[in-house]
């Protein structure tokens, strides 16, 4: 029983990482109505920018907020420069552009900052909480920040005019345009916000997994999984999904003997597919009803 509790706690700690990433995924899904495969790399690049700012001697919180600002602008620029020319192309071409962005960002980060693993400081310290080795102050801080972001995003989308306009632009571009919303800029804004959320997630994840160009590969995968399990239309679902993926992965790895650490990822993904088959729009997602 104690082992089980330990594993659940450890799972929640890693789940916090996935939840942050899942949140960023859902953000951009709300804004552009598609999954962004280069999201993880964007977060990784932001984290490298933060690391560079710290190297240049900025205090942690200065670098933190400056990085969020830079990422926001970069996200808007990527939408304007890379996506605007192909906005009328089909979804397949968009996915290929995501893949291209992935390759470009990953390779440039490796070129600029090389592939050696770099430590990244934590604002919360790495003290252990509750006298246990499983949950550190950083883990707790990460979960707190993720939940805070969730609340802020909820308030933004629910109670501001811009938030409403962004939801409208994603849900029904034609009608939104007729209502006087500048759909193109709403998309760009969505990209900017997703980049900013990704930057926060990246900076919180980096102290745990260390900073290097490939740090986001598996995290993004779990983030996607969390977002899809929770439902791509629900930020709360994404966070819950992220946490549950973390717990499932840990518990399955420990308690199912054949699995071990070899098939951990496979089991997590298989469970996700199982959830999707039973509930195709995720646990908390709205079922999209199509008009015939």
């Amino acid at each position: 029983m104690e082992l089980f509790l330990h594993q659940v706690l450890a799972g929640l700690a890693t789940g916090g990482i996935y939840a942050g990433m899942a949140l960023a995924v859902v953000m951009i899904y709300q804004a552009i109505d598609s999954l962004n495969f280069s999201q993880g790399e964007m977060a990784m690049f932001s984290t490298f920018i933060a690391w560079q700012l710290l190297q240049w001697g900025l205090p942690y919180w200065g670098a933190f907020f400056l990085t969020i600002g830079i990422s926001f602008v970069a996200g808007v620029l990527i939408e304007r420069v890379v996506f605007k020319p192909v906005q009328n192309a089909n979804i397949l071409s968009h996915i290929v552009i995501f893949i291209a962005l992935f390759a470009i960002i990953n390779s440039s980060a490796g070129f600029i900052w090389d592939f050696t693993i770099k430590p990244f400081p934590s604002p919360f310290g790495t003290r252990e909480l509750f006298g246990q080795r499983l949950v550190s102050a950083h883990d707790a801080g990460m979960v707190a920040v993720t939940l805070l972001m969730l609340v802020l995003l909820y308030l933004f989308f629910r109670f501001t005019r811009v938030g409403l306009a962004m939801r409208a632009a994603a849900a029904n571009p034609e009608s939104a345009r007729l209502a006087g919303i500048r759909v193109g800029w709403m998309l760009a804004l969505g990209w900017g916000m997703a980049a900013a959320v990704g930057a926060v997630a990246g900076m919180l994840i980096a102290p745990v997994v260390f900073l290097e160009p490939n740090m986001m590969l598996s995290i993004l995968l779990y983030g996607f999984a969390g977002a899809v399990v929770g439902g791509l239309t629900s930020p709360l679902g994404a966070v819950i999904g992220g946490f549950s993926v973390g717990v499932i992965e840990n518990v399955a790895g420990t308690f199912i003997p054949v699995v071990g650490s070899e098939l951990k990822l496979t089991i997590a993904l298989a469970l996700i597919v199982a959830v999707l088959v039973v509930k195709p729009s995720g646990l908390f997602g709205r079922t999209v009803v199509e008009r015939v």
Partner: protein
Amino acid sequence: MQIETLSIRLIASAGAVVVVLLPYWRQVLLLSALAVALVLAFALKNFVLFQLTLALIYAIAILGLNLLTGYNGQFSLGHSAFFAIGAYTAAVLMEQLGVPYYWTLPVAGVVCLVFGFLFGLPALRLEGIYLALATFALAVAMPQILKFSPLEHLTGGVQGIVLLKPDPPFGLPISSDQWLYLFTIGVALVMYVCAYQLIKSRTGRAIIAIRDNHIAAMSMGINISLYKSLTFGVSALYTGVAGALAAIVVAYVAPDSFTLVLAIGLFVGMVVGGAASIVGTLIGGLFLLFVPNIAESFSKGLSGAVYGIILVLTIYVMPSGAAGLVRLVLIRLMSRLGSR
């Protein structure tokens, strides 16, 4: 004067030949392409032939993906898994049971047909991005399953299986690379003709109708579940046969050859060649094999970035793939000629 009339006659008779052959332009194009391919077998170095063989194998795999995504509208980012199943079926048959290499192709095809059909059943519940994620999961899981220790005596674990390259039959005086190139062309020809006939048939129209409007298709009496999962199976069959060919030609299989990178490469190749295009898959295969090498030759450190930029530019120039570009140019030409 005489020269002028002669040249006019020549042009006229050439024109007459063109007019006579025009209705058969597909066959003419196919035969001339085949002739060029056969001549190349004796004109190129072995290594280049080996690369062309691989490109053609990728093209067959992309054709499989295209049947599913381009024609039936079901996403898959996991076709590397079927490629792997095909390759391992061939390798295990040859290594453990001593089956001749040419018999491994139909077996690999059938095995993948079954796997694809079974995977297609739960996939019926998923659409768009959710299906993409489920297949993505398959692609991620496959190398880990192949490395899985209880299966090691069959799959060779991380080490993979090393095979022997088959010799040309009947004591033909050609190298084994040349033979495998010709062999692959033969297999590809059969696969492409079958795909073309499938798409042209009643079944093919049903497959396309499901993509365009599944509600309308359903109301016309098409059994959506059956057709969708059958398309998944046939798509897996194509990719599996390609995988088996790859195992024979490369003479080596290992779990890490069939990762996400391959799945994404197949997807990119399909889009670059053109979704819902049969000939476009050949361009996709060439793209998949050669563009990463070209990118590497520009700059070693930034090869990924160069690859990405090439990809972005390709999509800017051809938003609906190479086949889409050709179609567009043809339509423009036709309307130009028609308006005259």
